[in-house]
């Protein structure tokens, strides 16, 4: 829960007002309307109470704001507060706020409050001259109050009436009236200005009420109101003076121009006003009702509920409306007493002021939300509201009607079969009622230790780079070996073709009777063929190697043939000359058949 105070401004001039808000957040228990003690140097009014409740995921938070309007009535540094506020039966202190009240400075006073510039009688003058030449008999302002003696909070009307013999335009207030000690309600200008004509001391005057305001005195005493000054522009059409001048000019004739418009002059004029005095009486103590909260005027009170029959948990809106004449802004709506079996939320306050009939009147509607917690018949009790009727000079107490409420039980709970076992209960969410930090750890996890981040260790990065490098090397090696194997397969597949070509070459050599070359070529063809087939160099080809690499399905016959061929070849190479053509032909055919047969074995 927290309580805060805030003021709308920390520096203000005499007679100005500030708003003091007391903000109570998340209060537990009901908050009673704080009563402000008399604050030195201020008159105070309650401006109402607003409450905001939000429920999010079942967790509710609330904020209550009590607003007060304070009107400064003496100069100096002022301390507002501290106050006490009663929440749920306990008294809480509200912090004090310091503000400074300065004496009214004219700079701010002209910008303060509304200055009404009324519809022009003539177009705004291009150049205004000082209005010394317009006498105070030609134009003047009278200020008057409708009453000399009033009660505190009884309205007194201050009227400004302008009297003029000249064509004049009201330009608004040069200096605003000083209304220290009063709550001011200005009447709208269009309702106030009425033009009439009046003969005064033998002269005809145009008379208009330029401003009307209702003043509600805030405290007893004798008050003098400095009513300020009024600005106006005045148009003077002094035909004779200029006509006589021009009639004797050197041209000897009258001016050809229409003199009325040519010679009209516009002056700006500041018109002082009279001070007015009013005696403010304290309200009589005799017959003051107990619940009187300072309302003065003439009021009525109404109340209503939006539903008379509801189910448990359904909100009902209870409205109290106070309407009538008087300073409705400061009227306090009587509070609803505590009602058992209901949750009560003060929800809203709205004030509607109308000044159309030249009296301050209006209504204030306070809405309260009631949520019934239990079924049954209930009555919203009557609320009493007392006020001082200043016309009859008596206190009056009025009441709202009481309202009957019929609360029905909510939706029927689902029927459950009663079994001897476990009776199901209505389950409620486990709700968190308070928020706090969780408890300390009593066991230390020795592994959860602050360590230097790995990414700051060069070794970590070196390791990663090493891994990447290693995987690239492996990938590269794998790829290269695949290439080598592919080469081998290519060699094996092309071996027959190469051998055939070589055999053909040998055959041609045989026809030329070149023994030596024939055997050399034959050797190349046969050893080259087996070398290609086995994927080795031709020097390392041997029968044993072929025997090792030969698949098991090969017949031993072919191995014998290969052996015989190899023998023939080595013999032929070393004793080529001894061999005849027959021999060469035999070797050739032998090689041819061995290669053809071997090809079959491999391909099988």
């Amino acid at each position, binding site marked *: 829960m927290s309580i805060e105070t805030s003021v709308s401004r920390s520096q203000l001039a005499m007679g100005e007002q500030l708003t003091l808000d007391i903000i109570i957040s998340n209060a537990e228990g009901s908050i009673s309307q704080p009563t402000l003690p008399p604050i030195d140097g201020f008159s105070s009014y309650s401006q109402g109470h607003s409450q905001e409740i939000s429920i999010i995921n079942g967790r509710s938070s609330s904020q209550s704001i009590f607003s007060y309007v304070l009107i400064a009535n003496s100069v100096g540094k002022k301390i507002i507060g501290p106050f006490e506020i009663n929440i749920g039966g306990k008294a809480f202190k509200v912090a004090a706020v310091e503000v400074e009240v300065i004496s009214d400075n004219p700079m701010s006073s002209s910008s303060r409050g509304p200055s009404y510039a009324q519809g022009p009688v003539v177009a705004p003058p291009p150049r205004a001259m000082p209005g010394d030449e317009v006498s105070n008999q030609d134009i003047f302002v009278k200020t008057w109050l409708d009453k000399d003696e009033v009660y505190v909070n009884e309205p007194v009307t201050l009227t400004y009436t302008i009297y003029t013999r000249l064509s004049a335009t009201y330009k608004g207030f040069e200096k605003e009236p000083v209304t220290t000690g009063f709550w001011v309600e200005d009447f709208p200008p269009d309702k106030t200005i009425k033009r009439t004509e009046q003969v005064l001391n033998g002269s005809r005057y145009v008379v208009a009420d330029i401003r009307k305001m209702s003043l509600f005195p805030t405290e007893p005493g004798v008050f003098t109101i400095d009513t300020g000054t009024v600005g106006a522009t005045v148009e003077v059409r002094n035909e004779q003076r200029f006509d006589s001048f021009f009639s004797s000019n050197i041209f000897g004739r009258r001016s050809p121009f229409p003199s009325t418009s040519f010679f009209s002059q516009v002056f700006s004029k500041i018109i002082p006003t009279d001070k007015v005095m009013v005696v403010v009486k304290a309200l009589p103590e005799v017959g003051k009702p107990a619940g009187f909260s300072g309302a003065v005027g003439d009021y009525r009170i109404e109340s209503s509920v939006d539903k008379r029959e509801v189910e448990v948990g359904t909100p009902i809106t209870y409205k109290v409306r106070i309407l009538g004449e008087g300073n409705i802004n400061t009227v306090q709506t009587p509070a609803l007493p505590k009602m058992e079996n209901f949750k009560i939320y003060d929800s809203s306050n709205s004030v509607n002021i109308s000044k159309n009939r030249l009296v301050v009147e209006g209504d204030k509607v306070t809405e309260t939300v009631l949520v019934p917690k239990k079924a049954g018949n209930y009555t919203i009790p009557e609320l009493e509201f007392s006020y001082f009727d200043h016309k009859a000079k008596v206190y009056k107490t009025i009441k709202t009607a009481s309202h009957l409420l019929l609360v029905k039980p909510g939706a029927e709970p689902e029927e459950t079969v009663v079994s001897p076992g476990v009776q199901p209960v209505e389950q409620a969410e486990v709700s968190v009622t308070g928020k706090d930090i969780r408890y300390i750890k009593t066991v230390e996890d020795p592994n959860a230790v602050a360590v230097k*981040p790995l990414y700051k260790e060069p070794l970590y990065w070196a390791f990663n780079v090493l891994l990447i490098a290693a*995987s690239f090397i492996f990938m590269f090696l794998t790829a290269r070996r695949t290439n080598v194997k592919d080469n081998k397969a290519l060699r094996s597949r092309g071996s027959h073709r190469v051998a055939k070509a070589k055999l053909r070459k040998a055959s041609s050599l045989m026809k030329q009777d070149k023994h030596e070359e024939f055997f050399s070529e034959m050797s190349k063809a046969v050893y080259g063929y087996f070398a290609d087939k086995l994927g080795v160099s031709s020097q390392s080809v041997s029968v044993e190697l072929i025997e090792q690499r030969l698949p098991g399905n090969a017949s031993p016959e072919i191995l014998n043939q290969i052996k015989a061929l190899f023998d023939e070849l080595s013999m032929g190479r070393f004793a080529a000359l001894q061999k005849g053509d027959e021999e060469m032909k035999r070797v050739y055919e032998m090689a041819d058949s061995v290669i053809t047969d071997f090809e079959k074995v491999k391909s099988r």
Partner: protein
Amino acid sequence: MKIKLFAALILGLLLSKQLIAANLSPWTEANTKYQSGSFKAAIDFYESILKTGKETAALDYNLGNAYFRLGHRGKALVFYERALKISPRNDDIRWNIDIVKSAVADRIEPNNEGLIVSGIRKITDPLTINELSMILSGILILFTTMAFIAFIFPVFRPFIHGAGILVVFVFLAAVVLFAFKWVEVKDPRVVILDKEVEARYGPSSRETKAFTLHEGAEATVADETQDWFYVALENKSSGWVPKKACEII
């Protein structure tokens, strides 16, 4: 006579304290102090462990709790954040951080981040940078092993070929996560300890005020001078704050 008695008393007290300290570990001692509500004493013990021994998540967490109980929310947040750095998956730490932050006067909300960024954050938040580093290296080790197997046993090559592509993608994802986390942690962060501190446009109290920070506000350090930190908030505003007003997490 009186003085002697007094001195004896003090001596006795000191001795007894030492005796207790000898009997119980400072950790148990600190927890007992916390339990009995003497948070100042608990902090002294915890700090003494911090000076001599290892900084564990539990130690930081308990220190944060003790500072919180004394009302030093900024200090509490510093220790909670340190604890969270060590154990990012601990719910208690997160809960307490949320509690502290809910009481911070400044509402610093990050600029709206996209779906992808928040998605990545969801993955990286419960992991420490070291865990991410290890995941990264782990994937590399896996990849290297696979390349090695493919080299040694050609039979597995077709399987490894497919798996390898998958691993490469996983590796790239891990790199993104790592980079994201690294950006988060590379600059030190500070917590404001003073009740209120003015951030200025330059590292001097003569410079224009930029904004006001309150106790518990967190910011990233972008630069520093001898006495000032240049801090950047989550909402991208930045300013210089005096070093003595804050503490590095």
